[in-house]
Protein backbone atom coordinates (compact mmCIF):
# COMPACT_ATOMS: atom_id res chain seq x y z
CA UNK A 1 0.00 0.00 0.00
CA UNK A 2 1.30 3.48 -0.85
CA UNK A 3 0.01 5.08 2.37
CA UNK A 4 1.65 3.68 5.48
CA UNK A 5 0.86 4.17 9.14
CA UNK A 6 3.87 5.03 11.30
CA UNK A 7 2.52 4.07 14.70
CA UNK A 8 5.56 2.02 15.71
CA UNK A 9 7.94 4.97 15.96
CA UNK A 10 5.37 7.24 17.62
CA UNK A 11 4.57 4.61 20.27
CA UNK A 12 8.26 4.11 20.90
CA UNK A 13 8.95 7.83 21.22
CA UNK A 14 6.05 8.32 23.64
CA UNK A 15 6.83 5.10 25.54
CA UNK A 16 3.29 3.83 25.04
CA UNK A 17 2.07 0.31 24.47
CA UNK A 18 -0.55 -0.61 21.88
CA UNK A 19 -2.96 -1.56 24.67
CA UNK A 20 -2.60 1.80 26.38
CA UNK A 21 -3.13 3.69 23.14
CA UNK A 22 -6.15 1.53 22.29
CA UNK A 23 -7.68 2.39 25.68
CA UNK A 24 -7.04 6.09 25.22
CA UNK A 25 -8.45 6.41 21.69
CA UNK A 26 -11.35 4.02 22.29
CA UNK A 27 -10.38 1.37 19.76
CA UNK A 28 -10.02 -2.34 20.24
CA UNK A 29 -6.50 -3.74 20.21
CA UNK A 30 -7.47 -5.83 17.18
CA UNK A 31 -8.48 -2.75 15.19
CA UNK A 32 -5.43 -0.75 16.28
CA UNK A 33 -3.27 -3.70 15.31
CA UNK A 34 -4.89 -3.74 11.84
CA UNK A 35 -4.01 -0.04 11.58
CA UNK A 36 -0.47 -0.52 12.83
CA UNK A 37 0.28 -3.40 10.47
CA UNK A 38 -1.02 -1.42 7.48
CA UNK A 39 -3.84 -3.84 6.80
CA UNK A 40 -6.53 -1.15 7.08
CA UNK A 41 -8.35 -0.07 3.91
CA UNK A 42 -9.34 3.33 5.30
CA UNK A 43 -9.13 5.48 8.42
CA UNK A 44 -11.92 7.64 9.80
CA UNK A 45 -11.23 11.31 10.57
CA UNK A 46 -12.47 10.65 14.11
CA UNK A 47 -9.86 7.90 14.56
CA UNK A 48 -7.12 10.08 13.11
CA UNK A 49 -8.19 12.93 15.36
CA UNK A 50 -8.10 10.71 18.44
CA UNK A 51 -4.65 9.37 17.54
CA UNK A 52 -3.30 12.90 16.97
CA UNK A 53 -4.76 14.03 20.28
CA UNK A 54 -3.36 11.14 22.32
CA UNK A 55 0.01 11.06 20.58
CA UNK A 56 0.22 14.84 20.48
CA UNK A 57 1.18 14.93 16.82
CA UNK A 58 0.00 16.00 13.37
CA UNK A 59 -1.68 13.64 10.84
CA UNK A 60 1.43 13.89 8.70
CA UNK A 61 3.44 12.30 11.49
CA UNK A 62 1.12 9.29 11.51
CA UNK A 63 0.64 8.84 7.76
CA UNK A 64 3.41 8.43 5.23
CA UNK A 65 3.22 8.21 1.46
CA UNK A 66 5.69 5.86 -0.20
CA UNK A 67 6.09 5.37 -3.93
CA UNK A 68 5.61 1.76 -4.89
CA UNK A 69 7.55 0.38 -7.85
Amino acid at each position, binding site marked *: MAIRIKLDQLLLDRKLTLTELADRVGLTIANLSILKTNK*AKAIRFS*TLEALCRELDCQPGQILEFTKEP
Partner: protein
Amino acid sequence: MRVLGKGSAASIISVVLGFVRFFVAIGLAITAFATLVLPFVPPPGYRVTVPVSFTVEGLSPLHGRRPGFGFEVGRKDDSAEGEPAPDNAARKRALLDRVDGSVTIDDASKAFVAANAVALMLILVYGLFIIDQVRAVLRTLIHGNPFDPANGTHIRRVGFAVIAGEFARAMLVWAENLYAAGHVAIEGVRFDTSPDISFWTLIYGLIILVIAEVFRAGTRLDQEQSLTI
Protein backbone atom coordinates in the same frame (compact mmCIF):
# COMPACT_ATOMS: atom_id res chain seq x y z
CA MET B 1 -39.20 -16.17 9.65
CA ARG B 2 -35.53 -15.42 10.02
CA VAL B 3 -33.28 -15.68 6.99
CA LEU B 4 -29.91 -15.89 8.77
CA GLY B 5 -28.73 -17.96 11.72
CA LYS B 6 -29.75 -21.24 13.27
CA GLY B 7 -33.42 -22.21 12.92
CA SER B 8 -33.75 -19.88 9.95
CA ALA B 9 -35.17 -20.58 6.50
CA ALA B 10 -31.59 -21.15 5.30
CA SER B 11 -31.02 -23.90 7.84
CA ILE B 12 -34.32 -25.62 6.97
CA ILE B 13 -33.48 -25.53 3.25
CA SER B 14 -30.00 -26.81 4.04
CA VAL B 15 -31.44 -29.78 5.96
CA VAL B 16 -33.86 -30.57 3.11
CA LEU B 17 -31.01 -30.34 0.59
CA GLY B 18 -28.97 -32.63 2.83
CA PHE B 19 -31.66 -35.31 2.48
CA VAL B 20 -31.92 -34.71 -1.27
CA ARG B 21 -28.15 -35.00 -1.55
CA PHE B 22 -28.23 -38.29 0.33
CA PHE B 23 -30.78 -39.81 -2.04
CA VAL B 24 -29.01 -38.43 -5.13
CA ALA B 25 -25.75 -39.98 -3.89
CA ILE B 26 -27.51 -43.32 -3.34
CA GLY B 27 -29.01 -43.07 -6.83
CA LEU B 28 -25.56 -42.40 -8.24
CA ALA B 29 -24.10 -45.40 -6.42
CA ILE B 30 -26.91 -47.69 -7.65
CA THR B 31 -26.54 -46.43 -11.24
CA ALA B 32 -22.77 -46.89 -11.12
CA PHE B 33 -23.19 -50.43 -9.76
CA ALA B 34 -25.82 -51.27 -12.41
CA THR B 35 -23.52 -49.94 -15.14
CA LEU B 36 -20.65 -52.05 -13.85
CA VAL B 37 -22.70 -55.27 -13.75
CA LEU B 38 -24.40 -54.56 -17.10
CA PRO B 39 -21.84 -56.53 -19.19
CA PHE B 40 -22.62 -59.63 -17.12
CA VAL B 41 -26.39 -59.47 -17.59
CA PRO B 42 -27.78 -61.39 -20.60
CA PRO B 43 -29.17 -59.08 -23.33
CA PRO B 44 -32.93 -59.79 -23.61
CA GLY B 45 -35.31 -57.82 -21.50
CA TYR B 46 -33.61 -54.42 -21.38
CA ARG B 47 -36.19 -51.69 -21.04
CA VAL B 48 -35.10 -48.08 -20.96
CA THR B 49 -37.17 -44.99 -20.38
CA VAL B 50 -35.58 -41.88 -21.81
CA PRO B 51 -36.61 -38.22 -22.03
CA VAL B 52 -37.81 -37.10 -25.44
CA SER B 53 -39.72 -34.26 -27.03
CA PHE B 54 -42.22 -34.99 -29.77
CA THR B 55 -45.07 -33.67 -31.84
CA VAL B 56 -48.44 -35.36 -31.95
CA GLU B 57 -50.13 -35.01 -35.31
CA GLY B 58 -52.98 -36.60 -37.17
CA LEU B 59 -56.72 -36.36 -36.89
CA SER B 60 -56.87 -36.36 -33.13
CA PRO B 61 -58.79 -33.30 -32.00
CA LEU B 62 -56.06 -32.14 -29.62
CA HIS B 63 -55.72 -28.66 -28.22
CA GLY B 64 -52.63 -27.15 -26.69
CA ARG B 65 -48.90 -26.91 -27.09
CA ARG B 66 -45.79 -26.60 -24.97
CA PRO B 67 -45.83 -23.61 -22.61
CA GLY B 68 -44.98 -20.66 -24.79
CA PHE B 69 -46.41 -18.53 -27.53
CA GLY B 70 -46.97 -19.20 -31.19
CA PHE B 71 -48.57 -16.98 -33.78
CA GLU B 72 -49.58 -17.57 -37.34
CA VAL B 73 -51.06 -15.00 -39.69
CA GLY B 74 -53.29 -15.75 -42.66
CA ARG B 75 -53.72 -19.43 -41.89
CA LYS B 76 -56.97 -20.94 -43.10
CA ASP B 77 -59.12 -22.95 -40.77
CA ASP B 78 -58.56 -26.45 -42.08
CA SER B 79 -61.04 -28.17 -39.80
CA ALA B 80 -63.29 -28.66 -42.80
CA GLU B 81 -60.56 -30.53 -44.66
CA GLY B 82 -60.40 -33.37 -42.21
CA GLU B 83 -63.31 -35.42 -41.10
CA PRO B 84 -63.62 -35.07 -37.35
CA ALA B 85 -65.54 -37.70 -35.50
CA PRO B 86 -69.19 -36.78 -34.91
CA ASP B 87 -68.76 -36.34 -31.16
CA ASN B 88 -65.84 -33.98 -31.77
CA ALA B 89 -67.57 -32.01 -34.49
CA ALA B 90 -67.56 -28.81 -32.49
CA ARG B 91 -63.79 -28.98 -31.90
CA LYS B 92 -61.02 -27.70 -34.15
CA ARG B 93 -58.18 -29.85 -35.35
CA ALA B 94 -54.93 -29.01 -33.63
CA LEU B 95 -51.37 -30.16 -33.15
CA LEU B 96 -49.49 -30.93 -29.94
CA ASP B 97 -46.13 -29.45 -30.76
CA ARG B 98 -42.80 -30.15 -28.99
CA VAL B 99 -44.25 -32.01 -26.03
CA ASP B 100 -41.76 -33.03 -23.35
CA GLY B 101 -42.19 -36.58 -22.17
CA SER B 102 -40.59 -39.99 -21.86
CA VAL B 103 -40.59 -42.99 -24.10
CA THR B 104 -40.03 -46.53 -22.86
CA ILE B 105 -38.05 -48.67 -25.26
CA ASP B 106 -38.23 -52.46 -24.89
CA ASP B 107 -35.36 -54.74 -25.87
CA ALA B 108 -32.91 -51.86 -26.16
CA SER B 109 -29.33 -52.62 -27.11
CA LYS B 110 -26.68 -52.95 -24.43
CA ALA B 111 -24.79 -49.96 -25.80
CA PHE B 112 -27.91 -47.80 -25.60
CA VAL B 113 -28.54 -48.90 -22.01
CA ALA B 114 -24.91 -48.18 -21.07
CA ALA B 115 -24.96 -44.76 -22.76
CA ASN B 116 -28.10 -43.81 -20.86
CA ALA B 117 -26.69 -45.10 -17.59
CA VAL B 118 -23.63 -42.90 -18.09
CA ALA B 119 -25.89 -39.96 -18.97
CA LEU B 120 -27.90 -40.58 -15.80
CA MET B 121 -24.71 -40.69 -13.73
CA LEU B 122 -23.55 -37.39 -15.23
CA ILE B 123 -26.94 -35.85 -14.41
CA LEU B 124 -26.68 -37.09 -10.82
CA VAL B 125 -23.12 -35.76 -10.48
CA TYR B 126 -24.38 -32.46 -11.88
CA GLY B 127 -27.16 -32.49 -9.29
CA LEU B 128 -24.69 -33.20 -6.48
CA PHE B 129 -22.46 -30.37 -7.69
CA ILE B 130 -25.30 -27.83 -7.64
CA ILE B 131 -26.58 -29.05 -4.26
CA ASP B 132 -23.07 -28.76 -2.79
CA GLN B 133 -22.65 -25.22 -4.08
CA VAL B 134 -26.04 -24.13 -2.73
CA ARG B 135 -25.39 -25.82 0.63
CA ALA B 136 -22.03 -24.05 0.91
CA VAL B 137 -23.82 -20.71 0.49
CA LEU B 138 -26.54 -21.75 2.96
CA ARG B 139 -23.90 -22.70 5.55
CA THR B 140 -22.53 -19.15 5.50
CA LEU B 141 -26.08 -17.81 5.93
CA ILE B 142 -26.61 -20.12 8.90
CA HIS B 143 -23.39 -18.76 10.43
CA GLY B 144 -24.73 -15.24 9.86
CA ASN B 145 -22.05 -14.29 7.35
CA PRO B 146 -23.71 -13.86 3.95
CA PHE B 147 -20.78 -11.85 2.58
CA ASP B 148 -18.31 -14.69 2.81
CA PRO B 149 -15.74 -14.23 0.01
CA ALA B 150 -16.44 -17.76 -1.26
CA ASN B 151 -20.17 -17.12 -1.80
CA GLY B 152 -19.69 -15.17 -5.01
CA THR B 153 -17.70 -18.09 -6.44
CA HIS B 154 -20.29 -20.67 -5.35
CA ILE B 155 -23.18 -18.70 -6.84
CA ARG B 156 -21.25 -18.07 -10.06
CA ARG B 157 -20.59 -21.81 -10.37
CA VAL B 158 -24.32 -22.47 -10.04
CA GLY B 159 -25.02 -19.90 -12.77
CA PHE B 160 -22.52 -21.47 -15.15
CA ALA B 161 -23.84 -24.93 -14.26
CA VAL B 162 -27.43 -23.89 -15.06
CA ILE B 163 -26.38 -22.54 -18.47
CA ALA B 164 -24.11 -25.49 -19.29
CA GLY B 165 -26.73 -27.89 -17.93
CA GLU B 166 -29.37 -26.49 -20.27
CA PHE B 167 -27.12 -27.02 -23.29
CA ALA B 168 -26.33 -30.53 -22.06
CA ARG B 169 -30.04 -31.26 -21.49
CA ALA B 170 -30.93 -30.04 -24.97
CA MET B 171 -28.17 -32.18 -26.50
CA LEU B 172 -29.26 -35.23 -24.50
CA VAL B 173 -32.93 -34.92 -25.47
CA TRP B 174 -31.87 -34.29 -29.07
CA ALA B 175 -29.76 -37.46 -29.06
CA GLU B 176 -32.60 -39.45 -27.47
CA ASN B 177 -35.00 -38.06 -30.06
CA LEU B 178 -32.68 -39.10 -32.89
CA TYR B 179 -32.48 -42.60 -31.43
CA ALA B 180 -36.23 -42.82 -30.86
CA ALA B 181 -36.94 -41.52 -34.36
CA GLY B 182 -34.90 -44.38 -35.76
CA HIS B 183 -36.05 -47.13 -33.44
CA VAL B 184 -39.55 -46.35 -32.20
CA ALA B 185 -42.74 -46.07 -34.23
CA ILE B 186 -45.85 -44.64 -32.61
CA GLU B 187 -48.76 -43.67 -34.82
CA GLY B 188 -49.27 -39.92 -35.01
CA VAL B 189 -46.12 -39.15 -32.99
CA ARG B 190 -43.09 -37.53 -34.59
CA PHE B 191 -39.93 -37.15 -32.51
CA ASP B 192 -38.33 -33.72 -32.83
CA THR B 193 -34.92 -34.08 -34.39
CA SER B 194 -33.73 -30.52 -33.85
CA PRO B 195 -32.18 -29.30 -30.57
CA ASP B 196 -34.51 -27.26 -28.40
CA ILE B 197 -32.68 -25.00 -25.96
CA SER B 198 -34.82 -23.27 -23.35
CA PHE B 199 -34.29 -19.54 -23.67
CA TRP B 200 -35.69 -18.88 -20.21
CA THR B 201 -33.36 -21.35 -18.51
CA LEU B 202 -30.43 -19.51 -20.07
CA ILE B 203 -31.89 -16.24 -18.78
CA TYR B 204 -32.19 -17.76 -15.29
CA GLY B 205 -28.54 -18.79 -15.50
CA LEU B 206 -27.53 -15.27 -16.50
CA ILE B 207 -29.60 -13.82 -13.64
CA ILE B 208 -27.76 -16.12 -11.21
CA LEU B 209 -24.45 -14.87 -12.65
CA VAL B 210 -25.58 -11.27 -12.09
CA ILE B 211 -26.55 -12.13 -8.49
CA ALA B 212 -23.08 -13.67 -8.05
CA GLU B 213 -21.48 -10.41 -9.15
CA VAL B 214 -23.73 -8.47 -6.75
CA PHE B 215 -22.54 -10.78 -3.98
CA ARG B 216 -18.91 -10.20 -4.92
CA ALA B 217 -19.45 -6.44 -4.85
CA GLY B 218 -21.21 -6.76 -1.49
CA THR B 219 -18.35 -8.84 -0.13
CA ARG B 220 -15.84 -6.24 -1.29
CA LEU B 221 -17.83 -3.45 0.37
CA ASP B 222 -18.20 -5.51 3.56
CA GLN B 223 -14.46 -6.15 3.70
CA GLU B 224 -13.74 -2.49 3.09
CA GLN B 225 -16.18 -1.52 5.81
CA SER B 226 -14.68 -3.97 8.29
CA LEU B 227 -11.17 -2.71 7.50
CA THR B 228 -12.09 0.93 7.96
CA ILE B 229 -10.74 1.87 11.36
